[in-house]
């Protein structure tokens, strides 16, 4: 396998090899506030700040600052204890990686992909005019959040378990992988004892995010149920249910979870299902309360997203607003406001 240069490690600080390199430097949290470490801390702060302001990470500095600034930036993001900042920072790093990776040689891209254990190789067949051959499972794992229909597996060349891709696509999929790896590092629940200075910077970053982006708690839904704001899929399910027509399992789940999420009480939802021929009060109550999060695992379930409803044939009569949203609850929220 091709080795990475120190430049590479600075450019791609999320690589396992970079982590090993930084480990050797033996940085300690307590020493971060020492004056000779100031440039590193400064660069780290800049990384997160830029992420908040413009989803970027700023200009690179010399390798000896750049390299250790990444784990410090991770620490700062963790110290903010804010999930929005963490997400945004991971995205910013991943985007930076993408724009760098596009200009790398194929071999270097393969080496980065190998760091994530991808099953990927150069395409040796002349029949397909694309440079890379990637295992379809790796492809699927990294297209989950990509919305363009171009990324759907059905629109790709899939032969014998391999998806054929050009360099741009491979770099884009690696971006997803990078983002996930960084998000995972940010997930940590146990907070170390941060020095005063670090906590201070984190507080400033948090204040900045609040000021610039107005991150507030997600607004809840108004308590009144507005039937006219139902998306077409829910309207169809609702009508079918009120007439006692048979609903598929996923149809019932979608309707129930939608209704409890917009503030309908489990009792009201129960009423709705009473006209079913296979109605069983005890069972229905149990299931509805389960979905509402009042039983069992105590998680309130949300309805499936639009793409899932399409797969299972629940999506129906989609209209213009449907094209702009990806989730039935978004549709409701949007329409109800107007």
């Amino acid at each position, binding site marked *: 396998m091709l080795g990475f240069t120190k430049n590479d490690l600075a450019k791609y600080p999320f690589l396992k090899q970079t982590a090993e390199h930084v480990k050797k430097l033996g940085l300690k949290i307590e020493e971060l506030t020492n004056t000779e470490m100031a440039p590193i801390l400064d660069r780290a702060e800049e990384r997160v700040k830029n992420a908040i302001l413009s989803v970027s990470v700023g200009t690179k500095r010399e390798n000896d600052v750049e390299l250790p600034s990444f784990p410090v930036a991770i620490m700062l993001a963790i110290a903010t204890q804010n999930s929005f900042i963490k997400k945004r920072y991971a995205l910013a790093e991943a985007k930076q990686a993408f724009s760098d990776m596009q200009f790398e040689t194929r071999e270097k891209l393969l080496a980065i992909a190998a760091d994530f254990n991808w099953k990927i190789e150069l395409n040796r067949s002349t029949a397909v005019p694309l440079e890379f051959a990637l295992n379809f499972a790796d492809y699927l794992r990294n297209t*989950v959040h990509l919305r363009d229909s171009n990324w759907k*597996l*059905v*629109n790709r060349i899939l032969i014998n378990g391999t998806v054929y891709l050009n360099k741009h696509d491979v770099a884009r999929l690696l971006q997803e992988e990078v983002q996930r790896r960084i998000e995972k590092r940010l997930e940590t629940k146990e907070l170390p004892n941060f020095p005063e200075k670090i906590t201070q910077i984190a507080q400033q970053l948090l204040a900045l995010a609040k000021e610039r982006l107005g991150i507030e708690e997600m607004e809840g839904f108004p308590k009144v149920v507005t039937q006219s704001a139902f998306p077409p899929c829910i309207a169809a399910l609702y009508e079918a249910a009120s007439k006692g027509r048979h609903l598929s*399992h996923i149809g019932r789940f979608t309707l129930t979870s939608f209704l409890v999420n917009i503030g309908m009480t489990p009792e009201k939802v129960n009423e709705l299902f009473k006209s079913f*021929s296979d109605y069983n009060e005890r069972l229905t109550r149990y299931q509805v309360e389960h979905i509402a999060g009042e039983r069992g695992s105590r998680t309130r379930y949300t309805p499936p997203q639009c793409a*899932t409803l399409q797969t299972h044939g629940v999506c129906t009569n989609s209209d213009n607003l449907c094209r702009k949203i990806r989730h039935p609850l978004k549709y409701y929220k949007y329409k109800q406001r107007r």
Partner: protein
Amino acid sequence: MAAFSQEVVYTKFSEFYKTSSEVLPLPTLAKQREFAFLLFKERVMIRHRNFPDLNRLKTFLNETVPSDIYHSCAYYENPEAEMDRKGWLGADLVFDIDADHIPTSCNKIHDEWTCGKCGFNGKGITPENCPICGSQKFDAKTWPCDQCLNSAKEETAKLIDMLEKDFGFSPKELHVFFSGHRGYHVHVENETVRTLDAIARKEIVDYVSGLGLTVLTEKTKAKTRKKGASNVFGLHDFGWNKRLKRGMQKFILNAAKEDLRHVGVRSYAAVLQNKEAILKRCLEENRWTSVKGVSIETWARIAEHVKNLESAKIDTVVTSDIHRLIRMAGTLHGKTGLKKIEFPAARLMEFDPFKEAVAFKDGTVKVFVSDVPEFRLGESMFGPYRRQAVELPTAAAVLLICKGRAEDVS
């Protein structure tokens, strides 16, 4: 089924699990799977059980005699724990093809429905509204017929073709089963797909169903492009494009006026007159605008129709559910008394479910049949019977009782 009739089925199932010399095939990594059982009398599901070895499972079956036996497709750290404490490790990729979901040439004439409100009944596909009282609640009784199972087989063949050629699964990783009722199951046991989440599996479902193919909607995009409509419809020779191409070739070659009109092609005359030119210029040379009088919209329409023919009609929910319980191979189906049975994918076309899945080979049972179409089991034909008592081989009698079409009178 009436309590008395249920007794016979229970006894037969019990004998089967006690004496069947055939060893039940335990699923791979059985000790990481959840097992579940449906009980005859109580109709309740016993869940969250685990049987690391066959002997313990057999003892349990002898004691409880369930009507149906399932195991999880998923592998868990603690298969006996509650759902959120199980520790999901992965799951086989499973497909379920059921004749219920497929339109068939028999038109389901053997199925019966009864209005839940006024009791009016009829045969065939259950209507939207009761023709007498307008109610929308029905009780339906289905029947597994040769034609239904053959159409399920054709869908399974298309699925297997995609799983082998496009997804590259080896025959060793593909396990094909008759479900014991109205369809087929395909289980894929493969290291790389085991950990795929529900969303990734949904993409596989969309692939197999041809959902979201952009070649079919390209024409709407063309309008916004300045270049004009030339070459917006195009097909290359790989993946779904290849399937569409092959399918369109076949469709156009055999198409009569009625077929084209059925698909919604208004310029059918132009298509019929230019078949040769179409096959050569469009399908071979990818020059789709070269045939006068046939628009891009027409190609998109035909392609859409061909997509429906080439896609495999699977139960979409089963495949994307990563905790799914599925019937255990070698066990009996409570609605038929037939076995879920595995066979090599290569034997799909010659596989005969009404022969190879028969579990009860000895003896006869006297039953009173309410109504049943002519049917085949093994080499023999039976029926049609209507309100009459007959003495039938055990397998046939159990099938009728399980399907609610007969009562035990012995």
